């Protein structure tokens, strides 16, 4: 134990909050049976720490101290209300009967956080509410931080969270990990939230970067929790995919913050530790033979990661993986990515035929990358005028400044 200075203590508590609030809250929700009471008790416990720790020193196990204190705070709150409302009396009595326990750490169950994630990503909640709720309750971000990251106002996010919580309460959404036949569908909703968070942070322009990068970090943190607690191949596959994409972050943008294409990236800037982790995860997921689209996308990323130089990329392998992916998840965006791989193996004319087929079916007409890809194939076939035309169309459809700058550069190269 040590006696910290007040300012150090606040900083230390903030760190504890970011690292542990998700776990503490999850355990309290189970112990108290109610999200609001749990949050209240947790905040009160952090305030109590601020007052108590300067004198007592930081306890050896801060999390256990906070859980135990929060539990007493909750009993106090129920008692206080019981003075006006007899209904709360037996709740306080029941909570007290369970006692403080020998060490609160023993009260924690490893899947507490998992239950909370499944509650926050429940399909009964609006999709945009799921991400906000997960970031706040599981990752410990404030409403204001979430608002900054998604570029919306704090009251908008606050409303989403208030409504989602009311729904959890009113519809008695259970606080549990679904089992059996229900799991795959519910897991899909959870993984979708995590991947959305990751992409929100990964594809953002560098302008508003800092809080956005944090979203990717949080997504990977959640991915690790899911992978660690739930032996499902797609949870492993998603973590692999995020880790492999993250490994290229430093090489994705040049000094001016402009996008660098995969083939032009400085591969020595790729994070080898993350790549090794990602590849091991992909292999683990593939070995189950029960993998899905996230694992296949991770496998494609792993093939790219395995090429020390762009020319060494095993495009045949990538084509085969895209074939499997397209069969599993027929989507025009996947078909477009497959066309890029096919062009590498069979030439730009084969790729162009696939893209033109998509566009002729009315798919991806408003997707700037479809036209940018078409421009690239046309350029390689020497059809400069067609390439220019496609590039202009892509430019008109691109919304982020960074994409626009990138396309302007390519248009200039076409003369």
């Amino acid at each position, binding site marked *: 134990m040590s006696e910290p200075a007040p300012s150090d203590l606040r900083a230390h508590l903030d760190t504890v909050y970011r690292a542990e609030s998700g776990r503490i809250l999850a355990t309290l929700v189970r112990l108290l049976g109610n999200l*609001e009471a749990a949050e209240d008790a947790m905040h009160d416990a952090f305030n109590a720490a601020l007052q108590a720790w300067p004198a007592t020193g930081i306890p050896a196990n801060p999390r256990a101290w906070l859980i135990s204190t929060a539990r007493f705070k909750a009993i106090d709150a129920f008692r206080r209300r019981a003075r006006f409302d007899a209904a709360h009396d037996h709740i306080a009595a029941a909570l007290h009967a369970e006692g403080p326990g020998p060490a609160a750490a023993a009260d924690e169950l490893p899947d507490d956080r998992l239950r909370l994630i499944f509650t926050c990503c429940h399909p009964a909640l609006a999709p945009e509410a799921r991400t906000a709720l997960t970031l*706040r309750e599981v990752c410990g971000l404030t*409403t*204001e931080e979430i608002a900054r990251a998604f570029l919306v106002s*704090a009251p908008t996010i*606050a409303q989403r969270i208030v409504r989602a919580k009311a729904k959890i309460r009113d519809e008695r959404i259970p606080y549990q990990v679904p089992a059996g036949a229900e799991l795959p569908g519910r897991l899909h909703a959870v993984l979708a939230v995590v991947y959305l968070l990751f992409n929100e942070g990964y594809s953002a322009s560098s302008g508003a970067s800092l809080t956005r990068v944090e979203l990717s970090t949080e997504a990977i943190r959640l991915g690790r929790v899911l992978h660690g607690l739930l032996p499902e191949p797609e949870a492993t596959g998603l973590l692999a995919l995020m880790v492999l994409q993250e490994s290229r972050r430093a090489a994705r943008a040049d000094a001016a913050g402009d996008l660098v294409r995969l083939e032009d990236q400085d591969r020595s800037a790729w994070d080898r530790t993350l790549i090794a982790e990602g590849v091991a995860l992909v292999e683990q997921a593939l070995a189950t033979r029960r993998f899905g689209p996230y694992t296949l996308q991770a496998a494609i990323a792993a093939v790219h990661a395995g090429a020390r130089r762009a020319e060494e990329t095993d495009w045949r392998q990538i084509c085969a993986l895209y074939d499997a992916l397209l069969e599993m998840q027929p989507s025009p965006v996947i078909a477009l990515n497959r066309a890029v791989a096919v062009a590498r193996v069979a030439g730009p004319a084969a790729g162009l035929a696939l893209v033109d087929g998509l566009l002729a079916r009315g798919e991806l007409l408003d997707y700037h990358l479809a036209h940018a890809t078409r421009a690239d194939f046309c350029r390689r076939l020497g059809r400069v005028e067609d390439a220019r035309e496609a590039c202009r169309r892509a430019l008109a459809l691109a919304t982020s400044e960074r994409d626009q700058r990138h396309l302007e550069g390519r248009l200039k190269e076409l003369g």
Partner: protein
Amino acid sequence: MKFICLGYADPKLFATTPEKEMHAMMDRCFAYDDHLRANGHFTGGHALQPPSAGMLLRCVNGKVVATDGPFTETKEQIGGILILEARDLNHAVELISRHPGVTFGPWEIRPAADLDEMMRLSAARRGSPPAQ
């Protein structure tokens, strides 16, 4: 984060509620304030006398004009302010939504603005050291 919470109420409500009911209500409010205080959320505040006891100052054509009772025609008046310490806007909403005072009338929750930088720049313009 600090939030300034403005509680509104119809002054008529206070005048027409039976005394016993009024006492019970005030007891609930003060008990909840004590709970907020005990947990470091209640960092300041005050109840207000009715608007008829106050005055309104306004600058008209460069002259300060004082009139009595501001906005007396509005039904709901600010009955009190509470300075709340909360982690974020949602936490503030939760704390205030449990305040028995919400049954009197609406509450407005406004994040406190940080003017430190503005004051520092202003002090520099005025050539005076920043106030502590």
